[in-house]
Structures are given as structure tokens and as C-alpha cells.
């Protein structure tokens, strides 16, 4: 056994054991690890966001944009507006902070409305194309082709699956029968997803065991 001399590895290993102690039950060791993890992760996220977005994008682009505006005025090209368009983004972001002041907090709804509205418009088209038209395009299959049996099952499965998701009619009689076939197909998919994931989850555990017994304690590898 050759334990690692690296203090960082020891810290990582002890925290790993703390997390695994959760399997036994909630305990102070796990609570300590959880509390530390939540605090460190939030701090890490904020710092990364600050340097990569706030400084690298917002401050930098606003600076370039202001400089362009001073030197070229409104004669700058559209691509130059990209830089000082960030000022508008910064204003929308600043309006969010007004939530901290109850009397004027309602202004922050404008920024939220911007996010929600943009999302809705974007996904209206996105889902209609990717989940609608593209899936229909791919589901149109020839029943006279070489793989006609597979194609037939694909068409029947898609058909019954869609019947299952009908809200306007109760699942009774022939309609109910088709919906039942639909949920069978869905169960096959869910089972396949489950089976597919098991191996990858096991490999994660093996990775952790390798870290503890190999990297930390030096007992393997």
C-alpha cells in the first residue's frame, strides 16, 4: 500500500468517503461534505461566469463598442453594433438587480419577460421543426422496401404511441387497445434506456473505486 503524498488527493478521498456515507444514512460527515460542496460550487460557478461572460464579453464588448461609436459614430457597420449592443444587454441585466428593492422591483419583470418571450418564440419554431416536421419526414417509410417488416413495426409503433398521447378521448374499446399497444412500445423504450444506462453508471462507480484504492491508497494500478 502506497498512499499518495498529495494533500489534495487526501482531501478528495476523504470527501468521497463522506459522500458515500450517505448510503448508510444522513450523518454529520455527509452533511459537512454537502455543505462545503454547495458553497464551493456556487462560488466556483460565479467566478467562472464573472471572468468568462461579464468581463470577457460584456465589459470588453461595451468598451470596444463605445470606442467605435466615438470614432465612427452611426456610420459603423452592423457588425460594429454587435459590440455596443452589449450595453443594451447590460441594461436588461441591471434591471434584474432592481428586484432587491421592493418599491421598484417590478421593473425586473421586463428582463424576465424578455427571457421568457425570446424562449417561447425560439422554441415554437425549434420544436415544430425538429420534433414535428423532421420526425414526420423520418417516419415516412416504404412498406415495399427490403426492410419492410422493420418499417411496418416503426410505422405501427409511432402510430400507436401517438394514439396513447391523445387527450381528447378516453382509452376504451378499440382506441384503448391501440393506446395499450402504444404504451407497450413506450415501455420497451424505457427498458432499453434503463439497460443502456446501467453499464455507464457501474463504470462511474468503478472509476471512484480506482480513485480510492489506486490514486489515494496506492493499492492497485
Amino acid at each position, binding site marked *: 500500500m502506497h498512499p499518495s503524498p498529495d494533500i489534495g488527493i487526501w482531501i478528495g478521498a476523504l470527501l468521497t468517503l463522506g459522500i458515500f456515507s450517505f448510503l448508510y444514512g444522513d450523518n454529520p460527515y455527509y452533511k459537512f461534505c454537502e455543505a462545503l460542496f454547495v458553497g464551493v460550487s456556487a462560488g466556483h460557478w460565479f467566478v467562472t461566469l464573472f471572468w468568462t461572460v461579464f*468581463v470577457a464579453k460584456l465589459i470588453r464588448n461595451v468598451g470596444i463598442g463605445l470606442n467605435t461609436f466615438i470614432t465612427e459614430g452611426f456610420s459603423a457597420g452592423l457588425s460594429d453594433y454587435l459590440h455596443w449592443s452589449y450595453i443594451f444587454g447590460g441594461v436588461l*441585466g441591471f434591471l434584474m438587480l432592481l428586484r432587491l428593492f421592493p418599491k421598484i422591483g417590478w421593473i425586473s419583470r421586463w428582463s424576465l419577460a424578455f427571457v421568457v418571450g425570446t424562449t417561447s418564440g425560439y422554441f415554437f419554431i425549434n420544436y415544430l421543426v425538429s420534433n414535428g416536421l423532421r420526425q414526420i419526414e423520418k417516419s415516412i417509410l416504404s412498406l415495399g422496401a427490403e426492410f419492410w417488416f422493420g418499417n411496418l413495426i416503426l410505422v405501427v409503433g409511432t402510430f400507436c404511441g401517438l394514439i396513447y398521447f391523445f387527450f381528447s378521448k378516453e382509452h376504451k374499446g378499440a382506441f384503448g387497445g391501440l393506446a395499450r399497444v402504444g404504451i407497450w412500445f413506450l415501455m420497451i423504450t424505457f427498458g432499453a434506456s434503463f439497460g443502456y444506462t446501467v453499464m455507464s453508471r457501474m463504470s462511474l462507480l468503478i472509476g471512484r473505486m480506482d480513485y480510492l484504492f489506486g490514486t489515494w491508497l496506492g493499492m492497485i494500478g
Partner: protein
Amino acid sequence: MRRVMPFTIVTVTGLFMLVQYFIPREEFEWLYEWTLDWIIVIGCFAMLLGLWSMTYVSVSKVRRKIPGWGYNVITLAGLFFVLIVGFVPGQASLVRGSAFMHLFEYIYIPVQASMFSLLAFYIASAAYRAFRARTILATILLVSAIIIMLRLVPLGPLSAVNQWLANFILTVPNMAAKRAFWIGVGLGATATALKIMLGIERTYMGRD
């Protein structure tokens, strides 16, 4: 103004994103790209609100000495230590080998990987509960999962059969159900987006 303006913004921005999809002109492309960037910037400012919320809740629990308040102290200590280590050196904190990145490597990564690996245990307990084959649906789930799970396992003479079955399941019934699922989700998401844009669904926006 307080009530009308947000919904106007929702409708205008929503319709813009919808319309710009069909207009390939440069001006619309630029505006679309700026819009996506503005959302990222809004998220960045909102992070300050998040930090404020986290700090306020933790400090409040410490002040009121709610049971377990000691752990809130640890959370705050972890948070502010990382903030100091991340801001003081400037952008150099993101460079590999910095104290900030060491914290990430030795605290965040091991704990994240450990949490992720807990899934191996949970997937076993979930499988035990789900695969008791008491109903036809549970049986179908069980059989399908077993065939897929064993597809990479050497089973001697059964390997070829199992692999063929696994391949068939993945490419035919699995794909059929996924298509139905995705089409349903597509229609549902599109309807939700339409309701939001037209102001039919307004519950997400506050009122005074």
C-alpha cells in the same frame, strides 16, 4: 404599465424570434445573435441575485440558530473563500495550477464524481422495485432492459441472438416509441410557447 409592459415584451420578442426564422437577411441575423447574447448577460447579472439569496438564507438560519446552522456557516465559508481565491488573482485564477483551479480539482471534481457514482447503487434499488414483473408493463420493461444490459456481455452461443435482439429493439420499437414521444413533446412545447406568446398563459408573471 406594470402589468401591460411585460406581456407586450413577451409578445414582441416571441414574435420576433418566430419571424426572424423565415427572413434570412443580415439585419435579422445580427438581431437574433444579439438577443441570445443578451440572455447570457441577463443570466450573469441574475447570478448576483442568486448569491444574495443564498447568503441571505444561510445568514438568516445562522442568526436564528435553526438546528444545523453550523452547516450553513460551512457553506458560507466555502462560498466566500472561493470568491476571494477567484477574484483576487484576476483572470489568472482560471489558469491551470492556480489556487482556484486546485480547489476545483481537489474539492469539486471528487465530490461531483462521487455523487454521480451513487447512481450505481440507486439504479440497483430502482431496478429491484421496478422489475418485479407484477404487471405486463413492468414485464416488458424488465425484458427489454435485460436484453439491452446483456448485449455487451459474452453469453456463449446466446451472444449472437442477444445482440441481434438488442440491435432490433434499439433500431425498431425503441425508435418508433421515441418518435411518438418526440412528436408529442414537440406539439406540447409548441402549444405552450404559443400560449405564452399570445398572453393566454400569464401565471408566470407576477402581479401587484
